[in-house]
């Protein structure tokens, strides 16, 4: 471990130097993760505590970002909302990308009719806009965080599978795979030792890129009332309460949650872009 960490640190420093935008994104994400992890320590109020003496209060020393229609502290809800966003975002994009890798490699390695069959199925899933598919799934299954994660995972699977399949097809033709075959390596060894490590770059890039999209999807579905259910703090839900009807009474309610969504998606996209440039510049997402 001791011999490993200096190189690891060195490549981190190099990444920060060469790709300042990506590093900035990474820093924002780090702050977000810390804020989410320490939400219970930082938050000045309980995010679920209603206070009918303080409805629609503008930002003040007691309520930093004001309160909503139930008198709940917006700042505390924002912090806990980061937990929801990160949890849903990470679970959905990790599951989607991981299942996509399995399907993509299987498809490329098996070839022939299996490949053709899997491709047709993926075509079916790719012929919906992401939000339409997610919305249909969540509407059928009902709201709640687990269903929401499932609904966001599904559209990510074929998109990863596509990209991984095309990378794996190229790798399969490589001389070292032929060599492995000819010395009698079993398929499992070829897949795990030769193919899998070589598709890690596109996997990582897709994972980061999905992260932002997943947060955006979670917010959109929650905003429509089909995602995270009240009273769980979620950014999209906070905006739901703050539509035009609230505009005249509490404009600040419409600002901060949207800013939090944008900032976090922005950060993940910056990081994803730089990772792509560094790891796999020809990949187009």
């Amino acid at each position, binding site marked *: 471990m001791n011999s490993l960490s200096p190189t690891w640190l060195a490549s981190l420093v190099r990444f920060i130097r060469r790709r300042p*935008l990506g590093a900035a994104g990474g820093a924002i994400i780090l702050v977000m993760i810390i804020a989410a992890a320490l939400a219970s320590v930082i938050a000045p109020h309980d995010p679920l505590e209603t206070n009918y003496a303080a409805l629609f209060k503008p930002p003040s020393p007691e309520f930093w970002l004001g309160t909503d229609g139930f008198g709940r502290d917006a700042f505390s809800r924002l912090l806990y909302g980061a937990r929801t966003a990160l949890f849903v975002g990470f679970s959905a994009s990790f599951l989607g990308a991981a299942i996509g890798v399995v399907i993509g490699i299987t498809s490329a390695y098996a070839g022939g009719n299996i490949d053709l069959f899997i491709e*047709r*199925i993926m*075509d*079916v*899933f790719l*012929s*919906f*806009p*992401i*939000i*339409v598919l997610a*919305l*249909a*799934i969540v*509407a*059928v*299954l*009902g709201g709640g965080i687990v269903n929401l994660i499932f609904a966001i995972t599904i559209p990510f699977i074929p998109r990863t599978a596509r990209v991984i399949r095309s990378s794996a097809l190229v790798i399969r033709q490589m001389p070292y795979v032929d060599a492995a075959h000819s010395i009698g390596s079993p398929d499992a060894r070829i897949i795990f030792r030769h193919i899998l490590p070589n598709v890690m770059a596109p996997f990582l890039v897709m994972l980061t890129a999905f992260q*932002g999209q997943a947060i*955006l999807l979670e*917010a*959109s579905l929650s*905003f*429509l009332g*089909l995602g995270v259910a009240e009273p769980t703090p979620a950014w999209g839900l906070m*905006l739901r309460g*703050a*539509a*035009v009807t609230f*505009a*005249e009474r509490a*404009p600040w309610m*419409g*600002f901060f*949650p*949207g800013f939090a*969504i*944008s*900032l*976090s*998606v*922005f950060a993940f*996209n*910056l990081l994803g*872009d730089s990772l792509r440039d560094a790891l796999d510049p020809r990949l*187009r997402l």
Partner: protein
Amino acid sequence: MQKYILTRLLLMIPTLLGVAILIFLLLRVIPGDIVELRYAGTSSYVPQETIDQERALLGLNKPLWEQFWNWIAGILRFDFGTSMWTGRAITYEVAIRLELSLQLAMMATLIAVILSIPLGTLAALKQDTWVDYAIRIFSIAGLAMPSFWLGILMILALLILFQWLPPILFTSLWVDPVKNLSQMILPALAVGYRYSAVATRMTRSTMLEVMREDYMRTARAKGVRERFVVMRHGLQNAILPVVTVIGLEFAFLLGGLVVTEQVFNLNGIGQLFVQAVTRRDYTLTQGLVLLVSFVFIFVNFVIDLLYSFLDPRIRYQ
């Protein structure tokens, strides 16, 4: 070429059939149908008989395969069925909203093209300068800002600064252009900004690739004016993937604006979809999903054909 077009058109059939099966089953795996939902709202007791009757009326008591067959057989006769909730033909429900969705999609596309191609090219030409960074930040921000939040901000700003709200009821462009545009310009901007962000990034990255090509150097070496090098040798070769992105986004806009339409209170296809889905209106949801995915697949196909038109080197067999 004709053979290629025919093959592609035929290949759409299994995909669309897959979509149909998927959405059909998805809607029916979970208990609770439209009849139950309709009576759940009324607190009075409803006898089982009434529920059964209603179900029979909607054909929900038949076995699944028969329901599916009736649906598909109808589509083959261009009969998409009637909405279970409103009782009107699905083609009618779509038709009355199509003008709005189509107009919004076209306005957003126009805004996106006007913004993205010059910005993307500029960013590529000035790579790694502050111009490039500014354009990249502008476009990544466009991807990050949910269009519903952008919509909320716009409405808030107008309300606070000018005490003005966009009109609520949709007026056709042909009836009253001013009223129509004053309602549509905000959603078009909110959507168009995001759309332009996608296209700007694509333009930039393909331009960067093209600029490293030998023929660019040759063109400069033989003294072609810079403007001409960029426009004719560069942009024309870089535009292909941008066309794809623009086409795909356009297809998406026709059916996927579920959230934006909600914010601006626009009664378009996206809004209809949300209503259909939340009311468990099987027939309407099925019809819309099939429609949206058909448009998606079809636009993909048109883009591929456009490719061989824009780049004569590409020939399909």
